[in-house]
Structure formats: structure tokens, C-alpha cells
């Protein structure tokens, strides 16, 4: 019969010390952050879908703004972190920044994909088309999305961790250069886009619409923060376990050779 102390699962502090750091992807902070985000999301949905008045020109299609614009800004933010993380890896060989860059790319691809899909669903009732290949904002956003899919593909190719980090950091920098091009494309090539200029700075939004949009930004920022924290900790745990697996394999090999 197995002694009780051997069959019991190792306690969290024990696992944490085994890994040399935190052993969970969640924490009390992320629990409360998640809860506040969900409450905020319910508020944005209630205001955005029910309370905000329909637009004079676009009608109810304007309600897509509350998911489309925060997703777009969130994608810029997440890809911006990937670019910073890529620079820090190439400059300082910082594993912490490499994991941050990977987390940013994964969260950013989700948000950029949502930006494209919600943009298409907004474009159909507003412009009469889901997609326009001659539109610079649409095409540059698609290129950014594909570059960052490339980043995740390079990471998935495998190999030793340092080579993967270096190769993907180069792709991350290409994505980073793309961010200002996507953002400024509607100003630089104003005659080659159906896309409107900034909804915030042109002063055409009603007070309640503007308030709901800012609330949506805050909720999106909290959601991105939650996702980044969890994704970073997953990356960190994976690294620790890989390093432990390697140590165990080496120890087993040495023990075999010593026999």
C-alpha cells in the first residue's frame, strides 16, 4: 500500500519551488480582473446594443464600432509588445521578453482576426461590400495579420529555443514596422480607401456613443491584460518544464553511462 505522504499531490509551494517560480497561470489578481472585465463587458453590451441611439447615416450598424475599434487598437498594442519583446530578445537575449513577444503575437492575431471579420461585417451594410482589394487600410491590416501568423508559424517550427526566438524576433520586427503603416494608411493614401478617418478625433460621435466607446476601450484593455498574463505564465511554465525534462534526460543518461 502506498504511504499517504507519497500518494498525496505535491502542494503548490512545493511545485513552485520545483519550477523555481510561480506554478499557476491564474492568481487572485487575475481572478478579480476577469470578474471586473466580465461585468464591464455586460455594461458595454447593454449600452452598445440597447441604449446608444442609431446613427443618422449608418443606422444600427454603428453598434459594431464597440467591438471593431477596441479589437483594432488591442491588436496594435499586442503586436507592439511583440515588437518590443523582439528587440529586447535581439539586444539583451532576454527570455522574459521573448515569452512576452510570443504572448503578444498570439493575443494580437486573435484581435487582428476579429478586427478583419467585424470590419467586413460593418463594411457590407455601410459600403455595400465585405471586402475591397483596392482599399489600403483593409489590405495593410490583412498583411499585418498574415505577417503575425507567419511569426506564430516560425515559432511552431521548433528547434533550439534561442534560434527559434531569433528567427521569430525578425518576423516580429517586420510586424512592428507594419503597425504605423496600418494606422496611418487612411491619412497617407486618403484617396485609396473607403475607410473613415479616426472616429474619435472627427467629433461626430454623440456623448453616449463616445462614453460607451471609451468604456469598451477600458474593458478591452482589461481583457487583453488578463489574456497576456495567462499566456505569459503558460509560456514561462512550458520553458521551465522543458528545461526540467532536459535535466532529467541528462541525469538518466549519466546514470546509464555510470553503470
Amino acid at each position, binding site marked *: 500500500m502506498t504511504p499517504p505522504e507519497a500518494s498525496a*499531490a*505535491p502542494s503548490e509551494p*512545493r*511545485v513552485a*519551488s*520545483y*519550477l523555481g517560480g510561480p*506554478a*499557476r*497561470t*491564474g492568481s487572485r489578481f487575475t481572478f478579480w480582473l476577469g470578474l471586473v472585465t466580465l461585468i464591464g*463587458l455586460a455594461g458595454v*453590451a447593454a449600452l*452598445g*446594443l440597447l441604449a446608444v441611439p*442609431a446613427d443618422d447615416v449608418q*443606422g*444600427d*450598424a454603428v*453598434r*459594431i464600432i464597440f*467591438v*471593431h475599434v477596441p*479589437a483594432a487598437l488591442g491588436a496594435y498594442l499586442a503586436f507592439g509588445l511583440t515588437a518590443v519583446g523582439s528587440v529586447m530578445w535581439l539586444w539583451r537575449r532576454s527570455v522574459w521578453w521573448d515569452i512576452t513577444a510570443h504572448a503578444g503575437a498570439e493575443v494580437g492575431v*486573435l484581435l487582428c*482576426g*476579429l478586427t478583419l*471579420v*467585424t470590419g467586413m*461585417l*460593418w463594411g*457590407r*451594410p455601410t459600403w455595400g461590400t465585405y471586402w475591397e482589394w483596392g482599399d489600403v487600410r483593409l489590405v495593410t491590416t490583412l498583411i499585418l495579420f498574415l505577417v503575425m501568423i507567419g511569426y506564430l508559424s516560425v515559432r511552431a517550427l521548433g528547434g533550439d529555443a534561442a534560434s527559434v526566438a531569433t528567427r521569430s524576433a525578425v518576423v516580429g520586427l517586420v510586424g512592428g514596422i507594419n503597425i504605423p503603416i496600418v494606422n496611418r494608411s487612411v491619412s497617407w493614401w486618403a484617396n485609396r480607401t473607403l475607410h473613415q478617418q479616426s472616429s474619435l478625433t472627427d467629433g461626430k460621435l454623440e456623448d453616449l456613443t463616445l462614453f460607451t466607446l471609451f468604456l469598451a476601450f477600458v474593458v478591452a484593455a482589461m*481583457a487583453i491584460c*488578463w*489574456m497576456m498574463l*495567462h*499566456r505569459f*505564465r*503558460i509560456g514561462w*511554465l*512550458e520553458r*521551465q*518544464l522543458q528545461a*526540467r525534462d532536459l535535466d*532529467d534526460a541528462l541525469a538518466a543518461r549519466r546514470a546509464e553511462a555510470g553503470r
Partner: protein
Amino acid sequence: MSHACYVLGAWGVTLAAAGVYTASLIVRGRRLMRRARAKAGANGE
């Protein structure tokens, strides 16, 4: 509501994708935690 299918489609896709990704992060974290527990137990650390 005018253009209801587009509005609800955009909101639905966003909430569904964010929800699925969030759930995947939780599941991946728990799996790693179980692996770490099992290895820590096996090594007697």
C-alpha cells in the same frame, strides 16, 4: 434594429472567439500545472 444580422454577427463572433481563447488559456494552464505536479511528485521534490 436595422442590419441586425451584421451587428449581432460582429458581436457574436467577437464574444465567441474571446471566450474560446480564454477557455483554452485556462485549460492549457491547468494541463501544465498537472504536468508540473506529477513531475515534482515523481522527483520527490
